[in-house]
């Protein structure tokens, strides 16, 4: 699917004629060596809607900052809502960065060097988005630094804040050499040396990133798991960590690579180019498959234990959390555990389906849905379910400001990926694998 090929020649001619020559030359000079890109006017048209979406989200964010969080539909029952779900979801999906980095630099899976740049880029987008969302979500953003200055060491959120920030710094360090490898920047000797030397020591950052990710992914799970006043979220502990601590880390490592693969499929579809060789897909898919399968077993055990022990000890039959309301039903468990759990696991574990691009794509899409539903349940369903016997379910729908600010990171991600792909050597195999023009 080469988008450039679908544009009528007459339109192409008009577009070329309207683009100033010096801009075309300047743009071309920034492309990675030996790689073809879509004409500048087409790239501009591609970015246009995403910039519009980002502007819409920006306006909504400014409204939330300026007029306070009454711009949202959050309420005293839903202190955590769609933003926090988006936050947890993007962090889980961005887990491909730390896990791929771990596999590439620490476990020695050398093939992954062909996708690691892209994984880091996606991780960078996901984590910067998460920090942006948190910056909008808190009621007093200017006091955000209190979480570091007045840190409560008993709070899982403190651990999240510290590890998230540190890991974002690590991701920035991992992404920086890629930026410096831009064709023009690389001509500056200092930048060339910096990016070269960064690559040399990247294993250290990858290991640091994996360590930090273990804790912040886990502590995000702990945020829900320690809530002993909320039987739907609460889990038993191993030492000081609830089971959700380990499940969140595990699921991020399992599903994060799925998102990396899905994004790669999308960018290949849009550009009409092969950017990553099949063996990389197969390797990462295989690892993700086994991770999802083992996660599925652990999560199923956790769910059964919770349903049989944790919930009843707190006076609840597990079905109470899936009934008596207009939205939350057993279907959530089915989507999360079966459709988003065992199905993608099996599709990725079996060689025949894994090496079929259609089924691999189906598997990673289902995986992304599965982990997103899990995060939804651990945020919004926790808030929705009543705890006091005489309390009631509270359902909620987001305001347009919440939807817009949630879409802002999506637009930002597309824009950053587009710019990075156009001007940076994100995919080392691009020249080797493909020919043909693309956007």
């Amino acid at each position, binding site marked *: 699917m080469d988008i450039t090929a679908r544009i009528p020649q007459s339109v192409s001619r008009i577009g070329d004629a309207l683009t100033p020559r010096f801009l075309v030359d300047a743009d071309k000079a920034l492309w990675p060596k030996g790689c073809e890109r879509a004409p500048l006017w087409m790239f501009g048209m591609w970015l246009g809607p995403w910039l519009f979406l980002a502007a819409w989200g920006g306006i909504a964010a400014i409204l939330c900052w300026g007029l306070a969080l009454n711009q949202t539909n959050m309420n005293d*029952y839903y*202190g955590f809502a769609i933003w926090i779900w988006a936050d947890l979801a993007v962090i889980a999906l961005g887990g491909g960065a730390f896990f791929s980095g771990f596999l590439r630099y620490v476990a020695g899976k050398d093939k992954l060097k062909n996708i690691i740049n892209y994984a880091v880029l996606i991780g960078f987008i996901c984590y910067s988005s998460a920090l942006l969302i948190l910056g909008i979500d808190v009621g*007093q*953003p200017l006091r955000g630094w209190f979480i570091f200055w007045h840190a409560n060491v008993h*709070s899982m959120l403190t651990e999240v804040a510290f590890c998230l920030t540190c890991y974002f710094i690590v991701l920035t360090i991992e992404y920086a050499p890629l930026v410096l490898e831009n064709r023009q920047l690389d001509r500056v000797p200092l930048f060339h040396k910096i990016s070269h030397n960064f690559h040399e020591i990247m294993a250290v950052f990858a290991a640091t990133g994996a360590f930090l990710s273990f804790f912040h992914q886990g502590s995000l799970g702990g945020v829900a798991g320690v*809530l002993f*006043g909320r039987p739907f979220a609460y889990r038993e502990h191993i030492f000081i960590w609830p089971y959700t601590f380990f499940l969140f880390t595990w699921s991020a490592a399992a599903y994060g690579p799925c998102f990396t693969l899905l994004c790669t499929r999308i960018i290949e579809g849009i550009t009409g180019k092969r950017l990553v060789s099949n063996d990389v897909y197969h390797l990462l898919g295989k690892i993700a498959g086994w991770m999802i399968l083992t996660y599925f077993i652990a999560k199923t055990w956790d769910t059964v234990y919770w349903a049989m022990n944790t919930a009843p000890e707190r006076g609840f039959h597990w079905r109470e959390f899936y009934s008596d309301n207009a939205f939350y039903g057993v279907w959530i468990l089915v989507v999360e555990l079966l459709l988003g759990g065992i199905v993608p696991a099996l599709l990725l574990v079996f060689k025949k389906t894994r090496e079929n691009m259609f089924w691999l794509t189906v598997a990673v899409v289902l995986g992304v849905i599965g982990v997103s539903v899990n995060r939804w349940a651990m945020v919004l369903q926790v808030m929705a379910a009543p705890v006091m*016997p005489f309390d009631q379910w509270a359902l909620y729908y987001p305001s347009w400001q919440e939807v817009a600010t949630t879409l802002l990171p999506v637009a930002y991600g597309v824009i950053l990926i587009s710019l990075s792909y156009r001007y940076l050597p994100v995919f080392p195999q691009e020249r080797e694998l493909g020919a043909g023009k693309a956007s």
Partner: protein
Amino acid sequence: MSGGKEHVEIPYQTKFGMVINLDKCTGCGACMVACMAENNVPVRYDESDKLRSITWMRVYKLTNGKPFPETDVCWLPRPCMHCEGNPAHGFSPCVSVCPAVATDYSRQTGIVSQIYTRCFGCRYCMGACPYKARYFNWWDPKWPDGMKQYLSPDVSCRMRGIVEKCSFCFHRYQRAMDKSFYQASQGGREDTRLLEEEYQTACAQACPAGAITFGDLLNPEHTVYKLIHATYKDKAFRILEKTLGTRPKVYYVSSKDWVEAAADNHTKKVAKAAPGGH
């Protein structure tokens, strides 16, 4: 958090709490009004949206769920429970989760405080509280014309974007302790321990039926102590105490079995909320 070393509790100096007699509560809402006036709680033009209005003290209407003529109704005032927390770890649900120590537990009074200037509005404590006793300031605080003249100078008004909740009228405790220390320094009293009448919450004073009793749960001279340890011994109950172990400091009393049963979760529900609560 649980696990690790066993929690060692520091002895209390005083432990303030409430006993609410639900047989006496008529659901008039005077406690709610008194609370709002005393604590400078802002008012919205439309207070009917209870998911966004601030009611430190909220009165629930419960029903036994049976059809007429067996229908029975009970009004249940719910302030912050000032939980002592699970005995295994000693943290109340909200205090342990606040990332910036904007809410704290005092072993001097047993009161869970909220530090308004420290809170940055993450709302994690709201998610942690099973009683939904914490409220977020979704708007800048506003009062109808002229009502600002009536604001209490002893209570700071809260800005938008932070969480607030019942403080057991902590400013009254501070005022009483100031007086007590002064009198003790002047030789006017032997110690600084507060007499029951020296520190009372606004809701307890405002209740026309005398349903709310407030005092030191550790002081045998206080009525709350006598109610729990003598008058209603083994009959006073606390909401969600049996299943969640939050150890609230608000006790309830009712002669109706279904009301006591409604205080905690059971696999078979015995009561539910009815429309008409405040």
